[in-house]
């Protein structure tokens, strides 16, 4: 009698403050394969989940922003290592989400390479964008970049893994912490990526990942008073108008990355790091 092993299905939860809780709301939305098979019940994250994530991200900010550039680079490299090791899992998830095998392989490879790319920038972008300013008085004056703080990321809808990685990496390599809403229609890789982050020495709270409905959560990404910048990758003119309006409540940076081809090499550059950085200028007298 041939025995067929019953596979163990995975429970997809959210990633908040370095833990994997279910949404506090107890709500879910089903994710089905192309043939209609139920793959998972995803957490339908709530506004309260979002607010809790911002608290976690804010708490993690002091430590992460003060960590050395070298350490952040090593941790980003570690994320790439972990992703490489789980390569096949991500390929199969992408396939479940309807991507061809060939494209899935390419997407995972590109995601790993993108992490390496930004890992390498960790201790270099500062040197590109900083300056010593020759003021006409007896002062030493210099400008450096500092992370802006907590960044809300509305990840691209149509690029489940590569788009997600391409937006998280430049934000965290610069010392920011973030709260991310995963692609609503392609949510599987995001939560598996959270597991990769979790095993890569990324301190809890640096990246918080929610799944759920964009229409329900988007406004609060833009309006929350303790979020310093919002990055959004989709939405028509009306939606981006609303995001920009609400962002004005606390003069957030608004970064629109719509219509970006994340598979292109042009979608990786240090200017994407600088978009969530502040410039700080320091003066000190030169004297005796």
């Amino acid at each position, binding site marked *: 009698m041939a025995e067929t092993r019953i596979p163990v299905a995975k429970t997809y939860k959210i990633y908040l403050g370095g833990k994997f809780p279910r949404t506090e709301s107890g709500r879910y939305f089903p994710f089905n394969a192309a043939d209609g098979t139920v793959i998972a019940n995803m957490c339908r994250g709530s506004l309260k989940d979002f607010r809790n994530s911002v608290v976690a991200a804010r708490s993690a900010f002091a430590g992460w922003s003060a960590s050395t550039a070298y350490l952040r680079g090593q941790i980003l490299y570690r994320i790439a290592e972990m992703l490489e090791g789980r390569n096949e899992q991500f390929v199969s998830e992408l396939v479940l989400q309807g991507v061809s095998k060939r494209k899935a392989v390419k997407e995972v490879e590109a995601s790993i390479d993108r992490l390496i790319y930004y890992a390498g920038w960790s201790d270099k972008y500062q040197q*590109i964008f900083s*300056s010593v*300013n*020759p*003021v*006409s*008085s007896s*002062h030493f*004056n210099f*400008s450096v970049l*500092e992370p*802006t*703080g907590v960044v809300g990321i509305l990840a691209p809808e149509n690029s489940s893994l590569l788009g997600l990685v391409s937006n998280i990496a430049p934000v965290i390599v610069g010392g920011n912490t973030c709260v991310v809403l995963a692609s609503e229609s392609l949510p599987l890789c995001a939560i598996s990526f959270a597991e990769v982050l979790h095993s890569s020495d990324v301190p809890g709270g640096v990246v918080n990942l929610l799944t759920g409905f964009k229409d329900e959560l988007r406004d609060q990404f833009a309006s929350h008073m303790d979020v*310093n910048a919002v990055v959004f990758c989709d939405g028509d*003119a*009306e939606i*981006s*108008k*609303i*995001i*920009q*309006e609400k*962002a*004005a*409540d*606390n*003069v957030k*940076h608004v970064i629109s990355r719509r219509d970006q081809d994340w598979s292109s090499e*042009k979608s990786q*550059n240090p*200017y994407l790091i600088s978009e969530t950085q*502040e*410039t*700080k*200028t*320091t*003066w*000190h*007298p030169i004297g005796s």
Partner: protein
Amino acid sequence: MSTDSTKLAFNDGWQYAPAPESIDHIQIDDHYGLFINGEFVAPEIDRYFESLNPATEKPLSNIALASEKDVDRAVKAARKAYTGVWSKMSGADRGKYLFRIARIMQECAREFATIESLDGGKPIRESRDIDIPLAAAHFFYYAGWADKLEYAFPARTPVSLGVVGQIIPWNFPLLMAAWKIAPALACGNTVVLKPAETTSLTAMKLAEVFRDAGLPPGVVNIVTGAGPTGAAIVNHPDVNKVAFTGSTEVGKIIQRSLAGTDKKYTLELGGKAANIIFADAAIDEAVEGIVNGIFFNQGHVCCAGSRLLVQESVADEVVRKLRDRMETLIIGDPLDKNTDIGAINSAGQLETIESYLSIGQAEGAEMYQSDCSVPDQGYWCRPTIFTGVSQSNRIVQEEIFGPVLAIQTFRTLEEGLTKANNTPYGLSGGVWTDKGSKVFKMTQKIRAGVIWANTFNKFDPTSPFGGYKESGVGREGGMHGLGAYLKLEA
């Protein structure tokens, strides 16, 4: 008054003889039109408003009130100049115009300084030694960038934006115009600028400089008026970028109104800077820094050190020395070279400041004002400090924009930092300590765009300026200021 025998008493016995700057060398017209397409033109609707001397409350001139139609004319002139002339001109040639403008400003510096103090109320020493030289220096600095932009942005091609709309405040009228116009032109854009309604005069004189420098018509257009004129610039569909310096309240309105457009923007907004004095600081120097931090330009400074955080063990000494120093400050005629504190810019601003004096007292803080006399005419506020304030007091959290200092104490470095960072603003900060490692710890941890260590309120064209949090978006000045006026193509 203190009876301490070591106190310096400046105000009894010897008096300073008046040393007023003469005004016979300046030329202010009775009426100023709008500067559109290289000439002064009448507004579409025949409306003018008075610009007052805040030290005397007497009118200086009549300024055209620009309507939406006038703004449209200005934008059209700017667009025509952009497509026809300025965007085609080489960077080197743009730079030559900017150098020439800087030179003429230097030649006319005395007239500019005098008019600035007459129209805005700031002491002539400040307009003469800071505002006007720095304004000219900004043109000189950015002139040199005009043909070197590609060196500022590795692996990118910088491209001008088009027509930029710029709205500036009344606290540093000419300097703010220079901060805005010089980088915009260097980067190949054309400009529609609106000065603040209480301080239009030096912008009008600057328009004369542009004309005399032969700057092609329409490259800079200056429209005068109040809020609605500014709104017409912000909302004009053919403006590609908006640069605003002013209050956080108006900044938010502008950010909202730009939502859904592709216009770029930079916002330089309010502040509530903490000036942090450690026990190991050079106390006498720190006291000078506190005075400069809050009483410079009557406290009409977005980056003013309007909160003093002083370490508990030296708090009594610092406050005593500060009060003594305040007694030596001379308040009065802005044109007098002895004057330390000039006139409050407008009746409206004086009212705002006075309302905060009441609020501070009602919240339970103890107010102290220096004894100096003030003139009968004009708008004046004595240098003021509040002690016994707590972090949640409105005079600690809100920008007053006047010579009013809120004083708090702290024990540990961490407590000082926490208090410093606990406002919605993040424009500037100050730290005073003799210990280098503490300087760096503090300057790294204060969440603000400009930090002065063992100094305060220093400015330079090469030095980027701008805020974190609700103090704004973007930087002006220095190499970083170029990014605000360019798009970067891969």
